[in-house]
């Protein structure tokens, strides 16, 4: 980690968010219109900041910043290439999960701070959803870390130089993908905002710069989640011929496109349905994934 690492991380987040927005355009609208993207961004920014009659202005205006901070921190823990590994800590995977957990208080603060029925409802839905998916995320990270014998993301990438983890642990991947899609509050897990049902929910009162921050943070979260998925399950920068950085970028883009494509084709989950599935199915399966991972580690990775 050098003095330039923070700037590089911000750069990755900015470029990644732009690319993620373009991928979203292609996947959901089937067209590529960067000009329209810039126009809508400028339009959002030109809108004056909302000073609605919020109940708790502190929480309301802090929430977008906390969201952006969590997203940037999550990006910082992703090992992008062998030369640029972000914050390369020995417990980096825990750091990534920790960064993601701060999305929860941020969305709750947004909803509660707005003081509107829809906002508070969106915030509480989000709390319930988060409590349900936090455990699968933690358990899947354990399951992926066990074969590498390390919580350092770059070690996990290196242990996959022959076989990607997705082939070894498909169950863990199957639990991980919906969970990270939920962290990014993208459809079909867009319960806190729920357009057409809660009218924007937790984010209904945001205008101007605040709204732009939230949309930006959501894209950065998607970049971080896709990047970590590529690193944890698809071998990260490992690959033939092409340079490692390009491999990682390609894998990240494919994961992001897949998440957006599948998410856009599934109807929004009802809160009680998704909670029931998460607690009764996903959590026990996540425990099973740990057992499977332990067996695999003992048999093949020692």
């Amino acid at each position, binding site marked *: 980690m050098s003095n330039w690492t923070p700037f590089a991380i911000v750069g990755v987040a900015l470029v990644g968010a732009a690319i993620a927005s373009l991928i979203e355009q292609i996947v959901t609208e089937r067209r590529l219109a960067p000009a329209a993207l810039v126009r809508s961004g400028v339009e959002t920014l030109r809108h004056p900041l909302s000073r609605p009659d919020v*109940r*708790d202005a*502190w*929480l309301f205006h802090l929430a977008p910043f906390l969201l952006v901070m969590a997203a940037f921190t999550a990006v910082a823990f992703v090992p992008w290439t062998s030369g640029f590994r972000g914050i390369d*800590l*020995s*417990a980096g995977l*825990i*750091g990534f*999960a*920790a960064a993601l*957990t*701060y999305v*929860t*208080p941020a969305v*709750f*603060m947004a909803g*509660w701070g707005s003081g509107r029925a829809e906002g508070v409802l969106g915030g*509480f839905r989000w*709390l319930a959803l*988060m*409590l349900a998916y*936090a455990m699968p995320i*933690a358990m899947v990270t354990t399951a992926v870390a066990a074969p590498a014998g390390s*919580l350092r993301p770059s070690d996990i990438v290196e242990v996959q130089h022959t076989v990607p983890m997705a082939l070894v642990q498909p169950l863990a991947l199957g639990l991980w993908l919906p969970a990270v899609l939920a962290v990014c509050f993208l459809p079909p897990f867009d319960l806190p905002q729920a357009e057409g049902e809660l009218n924007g929910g937790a984010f209904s009162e945001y205008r101007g710069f605040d709204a732009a921050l939230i949309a930006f943070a959501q894209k950065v979260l998607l970049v971080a989640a896709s990047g970590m998925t590529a690193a944890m399950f698809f071998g990260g920068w490992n690959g033939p011929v092409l340079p490692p950085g390009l491999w990682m970028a390609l894998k990240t883009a494919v994961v992001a496109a897949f998440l957006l494509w599948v998410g856009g084709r599934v109807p929004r989950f009802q809160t009680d349905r998704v909670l029931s599935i998460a607690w009764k199915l996903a959590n026990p399966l996540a425990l099973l994934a740990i057992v499977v991972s332990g067996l695999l580690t003992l048999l093949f990775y020692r």
Partner: protein
Amino acid sequence: MSELATALVFWPAAILMVVTGLFVFITPSMARAGLLLLASLAFAGLIFLALASEFLGLLMLLMMSGEMVIMVFFMIMFMPDPGGLMGMDMVHEKRRSATVAASIGVALAVVAILTDWPVRLAGTDAPDVRAIGFEVMGRSMVTFLFAAMTILFAMVGGVLLAKYGGRFGLGAPSGEDRGGAG
């Protein structure tokens, strides 16, 4: 990290930890109290990170976020005035509790200053670090698991008792709205 970087993270985090911790008891809003406690504990996690205790620091940041959010959930659910709109006060017996808190704080500070702390640095493979690891992951594991299950049962029990009809699950009297989405 260099000494300067450590100091630059440590002191602001320490001061903010105390300030946010103090405001937990000043604010009348349950949502704010819970989130301020989360902020205070997150700053404690940053202090761990500044002192190069990566695993503990990150684990603290991870666990406290989840736990404090659950606490906010429970506080809003159980308190009669979750938004603090009726000016509820979190502190009772003000003078006596302030005296007790101040004297304990002074006593702890005196102990911390007067103690002859060891200066040696323990590496990751120092014998006592290994011993703690084996103790925590071995013999003491059952104790920890038991404590965790007890807390879980207490939470489930608390919800059941707070439910209308208590632990017997009585239905609401006919014609009365039970609340909820029903």
